[in-house]
């Protein structure tokens, strides 16, 4: 009989079920009403932004937009686990995390409205802008982690992408070096079950995405991505591990894309409404609100005040965005190089004469 060369195990953690009932003992931070309301408020704020962004796109006032509907717990769980020393490298569906990190609503509207200034964050200066080419941010995260090590900084590079990204070579190549060099990097997968029209089951024969970590020699974990407590707890543990010099982790967050892929997509072409409806029962806001009501006396007026405040803030940000004139056309040349080259200044002159 051949002897077993190695063996692997994948845990899937969860603290709240879909109805908001606790499953076992909660992590310490989840006993604080203040912390939980902060997480809940951030998720509501994210969803309010999302609805406004879609409304603006539908009325021709924003570009193509990728909704994060139903996946807010991943964004907020990840970002709330991070510190200012860490560097975030997001995909295009993690608005909630960017907002938590200090990117402003106006900046997000600007970016999705087609203005590069939306990436010139006033805060979170070290964070990367949204990465559109899927999975290509993972090698960047390895590079940031390398720079962190070389400079003796206390941070961790945290990159996130969707389930489709795990089929790409960049994802594996980056994870492999994180393992080989024990780099301080945490890779998060928002497994929302869909890569545009291709479902998770058709994406890979792997039974979990987390197991892909084992090929790179780093730990892989699953977590209920609709449970913000579980996401935060898992990411905190991974960040602590990375900060202690023990290397990186891959975290697969299980969730569901309740929206179309983007505003340019029509998901009814490839999935049944009934399937989507079933997943609404497990969405992340409802369960945390239920828990807050049951355990911390979250009141109707608190809920109303929160929704009102988020609506007001998002409306104001949208108005500021809409009132911001585009940059002058020459802006397309001004940051190509640190110093404008002869060729480029000739183009800028041509543009001004045109």
């Amino acid at each position, binding site marked *: 009989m051949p002897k077993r060369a190695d063996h692997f195990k994948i845990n899937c953690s969860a603290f709240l079920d879909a109805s908001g009932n606790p499953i076992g003992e909660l992590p310490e931070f989840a006993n604080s009403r203040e912390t939980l309301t902060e997480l809940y408020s951030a998720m509501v704020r994210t969803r309010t932004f999302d609805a406004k962004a879609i409304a603006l796109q539908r009325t021709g006032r924003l570009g193509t937009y990728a909704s994060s509907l139903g996946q807010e717990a991943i964004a907020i769980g990840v970002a709330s686990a991070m510190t200012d020393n860490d560097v975030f490298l997001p995909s295009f569906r993690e608005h909630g995390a960017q907002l938590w990190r200090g990117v402003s609503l106006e900046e997000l509207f600007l970016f999705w409205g087609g203005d590069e200034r939306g990436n010139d*964050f006033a805060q979170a200066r070290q964070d990367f802008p949204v990465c559109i080419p899927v999975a290509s941010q993972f090698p960047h995260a390895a590079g940031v982690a*390398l720079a962190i090590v070389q400079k003796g900084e206390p941070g961790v590079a945290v990159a996130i992408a969707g389930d489709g990204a795990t089929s790409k070579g960049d994802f594996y190549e980056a994870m492999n070096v994180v393992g080989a060099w024990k780099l301080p990097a945490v890779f998060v997968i928002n497994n929302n079950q869909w890569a545009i029209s291709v479902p998770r089951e058709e994406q890979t024969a792997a039974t979990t995405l987390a197991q892909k970590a084992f090929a790179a020699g780093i730990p892989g974990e699953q977590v209920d991505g609709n449970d913000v407590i579980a996401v935060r707890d898992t990411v905190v543990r991974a960040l602590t591990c990375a900060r202690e010099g023990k290397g990186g982790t891959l975290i697969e967050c299980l969730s569901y894309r309740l929206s179309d892929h983007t505003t340019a997509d029509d998901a009814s072409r490839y999935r049944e409404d009934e399937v989507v409806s079933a997943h609404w029962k497990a969405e992340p806001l409802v369960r945390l609100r239920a828990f807050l009501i049951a355990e911390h006396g979250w009141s109707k007026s608190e809920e109303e005040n929160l929704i009102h405040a988020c609506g007001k803030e998002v409306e104001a940000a949208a108005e500021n965005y809409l009132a911001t004139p585009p940059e002058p056309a020459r802006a397309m040349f001004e940051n190509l190089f640190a110093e404008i080259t002869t060729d480029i200044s000739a183009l800028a002159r041509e543009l001004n004469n045109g």
Partner: protein
Amino acid sequence: MAELTMIEAIRAALFRALTDDPDVIIFGEDVGIDGGVFRATDGLIQRFGASRVRDTPLSETLIAGMAVGAAAHGLRPVAEIQFMGFIYPVLDQLANHASRLRNRTRGRLTCPMVLRAPFGGGIKAPEHHSESTEAMLAHIPGLRVVVPSSPPRAYGLLLAAIRDPDPVVFLEPKRLYRSTSEEVEDDGEALPLDKAFVLREGEDVTIVTWGAMVAEATEAAQQLAETGVSVELVDLATLKPIDRATIRSSVEKTGRCVVVHEAPLTAGLGAEIAADLAEHCLTSLLAPIRRVTGYDTVMPYLRLERHYLPNTARIVEAVGGVMEFA
């Protein structure tokens, strides 16, 4: 001053950069204890340690992407792609990220990285080792592309590339790595990244070329001088941005131009140079612009390589053609 080959000059520049700037870091495949497959990094790991001279996994996309991330977070990575034929997966990182990070963040994040790769044919290397794909790279806005053609220019241009605040692809003609030695002063002086070098002044015809073709063109110019044709030889050196002013003023003087490159003809950089001259120097031209290039075919294996690469005879013939025209 020491006589150095190009590979030694490159190593000297890397040594200097590592010494001068603690943020400079070298990584790539086999760059550590092996010193690189061409020995460009020979001895650097012994002097600067394994944390600054790092062997990566065999992973080109990673090498380029990691350079982007490291550069954006404050390092000055000098990454090596082992052979030009392996650069294709890297185009994603160069075109989508390195070249546009400054622009898309309006200057918040930048990418001061250098990607080195051996370049071109002529050393009877295996398949996928001898290509010249500089035009693909030069087509990417926001990227600088540099090709040295002598040991002192390799030294000065590589130092400039490493110190430049933006991404630079540094293509090293491997045929010139050890072909000659020249005096190189290891004084830390960089050369400009936007100036072509007029290697030989002449009156009758301008030859614009770069990389290993500079040696062929130099030989051609000598042969032509014996027949009374005076060649002005321009080593373009920085392919992006192109020093159009130097080329134009040379051709305005000579009235004739031959562009020589190893890469295939169609959509090669010779087309850009010819178009620029047609737009800006038409009234100075005495003859059609000629291009002497690799053929529009797949780079042959080593047995036929010499038939593919432009050589002195083809350059002399092309110059003869433009001289006969007028």
